[in-house]
């Protein structure tokens, strides 16, 4: 669904992403792993349209995405979460999701239609909150949620826009075991209809849920393929996994 070919991004002299190609397919969870500074976040930003590539191309459902802006990509169905929770602190968890859901509703100009009474966005918000398990906390201001809850809200907001491609930037960071399991189950359910990119450090989670793994180091792709192949790849073992497995 979402394919990147030869993506490169330079910041002055630093090459953050070096000729990276990858494909996200529907029905697959594609995990992206690598040490800090390997270029994972930059890659997500490139795919989400926050950054423009120095060279290379991105295509969505076969059509090229030129100079994708984040809002245009989001409207085309690419949803993302941020590494550091990027929510609307003054609004409640529910309101956060509702605003997210309202991004896809046409007829913005209908001033007589109250946002609070909009059933489609309220419904989408409720479903998103339920999917991550935050329904009990729906009326709490986002700024007052715990760190783990805020990570869940991040995912819920992304879900509320009903995306077909999900780009998840370390969604499990800071979550407890129970929350992590819940999120992983959610991802397994979600992938059936969607393509998911999962950037993570938690190796157990990655190997438990990923269909394809790409390993990055120093901005370039070190290895890519089925989990077992990657696990056994000598270059990967040497530079990254070491004795972790």
């Amino acid at each position, binding site marked *: 669904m979402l394919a990147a070919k030869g993506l490169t991004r330079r910041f002055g002299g630093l090459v953050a992403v070096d000729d990276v190609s990858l494909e996200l397919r529907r029905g697959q969870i594609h995990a992206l792993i690598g040490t800090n500074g390997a270029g994972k976040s930059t890659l997500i930003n490139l795919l*989400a349209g*926050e950054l423009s590539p120095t060279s290379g191309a991105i295509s969505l459902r076969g059509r090229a995405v030129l100079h994708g*802006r*984040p*809002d*245009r990509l*989001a*409207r085309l169905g690419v*949803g*993302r979460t*941020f590494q550091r929770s*990027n*929510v*609307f*602190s*003054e*609004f409640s968890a529910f309101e956060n999701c*509702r*605003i*997210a859901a*309202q*991004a*896809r*509703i046409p007829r*913005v*100009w*209908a*001033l*007589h*239609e*109250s*946002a*609070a009474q*909009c059933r489609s*966005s309220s419904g989408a918000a409720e479903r998103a909150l339920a999917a991550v398990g935050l329904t009990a906390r729906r009326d709490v201001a986002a700024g007052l949620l715990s760190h783990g809850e805020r990570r869940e809200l991040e995912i819920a*907001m992304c879900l509320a*826009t009903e995306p077909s491609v999900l780009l998840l930037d370390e969604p499990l960071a800071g979550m407890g075991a129970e929350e992590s399991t819940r999120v992983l189950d959610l991802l397994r359910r979600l992938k059936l209809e969607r393509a998911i990119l999962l950037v993570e450090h938690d190796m157990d989670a990655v190997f438990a849920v990923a269909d394809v793994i790409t390993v990055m180091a120093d901005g370039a792709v070190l290895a890519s393929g089925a989990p077992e192949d990657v696990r056994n790849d000598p270059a990967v073992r040497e530079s990254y996994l070491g004795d972790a497995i």
Partner: protein
Amino acid sequence: MSTARRILPWLSLLMLILLPALAGKFYIELVAKIMIMAVFAMSLDLLVGVTGLVSLGHAAFFGLASYVLVLAAPDQYTAVSLWTSLPLAVAASALLALVIGALALRTRGVYFIMVTLAFSQMVYFVFHDTKLGGGSDGTYLYAKPTAMLGGWSLLDFNNSTQFYYAMLGLLTLIFAFLRLLLASRFGHALRGIRSNEQRMRALGFNTYAYKLAAFTIAGAIAGAAGYFAAVQFGFVNPEMLSWHQSANVLLMVILGGAGNLFGAVVGAFTFVLLQDLFSSLTKHWLLLMGGFVILAVMLLPGGLTRVSDSWQAWRARMQGG
């Protein structure tokens, strides 16, 4: 919202309706002027308090409409019709806002503040340096617009009480319109933009378009206020477009409390009344005003309608050190 906050706007409306029966001409005209400024302040609140856009050039839209009214009249003694001149003035302000907004909104943060200031200065100089509208001296409007309907004069703007109620009607109309706007999806999106613009873009909102729309609407409403200010005053000059005017209206919004519209109204009342008070005390009243501005922003950053919030924040700071 607490009961007090719910009732206050209605109570104020009641008082405003009753005022002409209780007060003399001087106060009727003064409060009419304040209500015009309140509309001006509410339009800026849409930008500052709701969308998070700090514009230091809002007076450009206010003043342009005033000038359009004066320029629309073939000469100073011929009255124009309200039905043609008001839409013309508001459209002019809206168009200016669209153009300035399209350029200024390409910038963010401090750049945006400085750019809005600079553009409004440009408009100021157009009227100050050229002979358009009388240059730096300004022009008088001796004949107020007529509001005729089928041969009958609906409103006589020369009559202070009628003008007062027309302004009250305007204030109520704009207040209701903005409330509706804020409750809609569009309004919610604006608030989202203020809270976290990057997130809004990542979710799929074309934030530039939303901001531009808000900017244009705010400009149009400011134009309506400017139009009636010229009607009441009977005189326009470049000072109506000056950055002092822009700073004053910004102050009104902050003084009353940004983001809830009613604060803008409160701020307008407070500011104009204080201005009158200070200027009656001393020739150097700007010193008092300056000092007041500093104290008010330092001590009451949330504005008068959020005194309880400011009080709690102050206590927290005292305890937390």
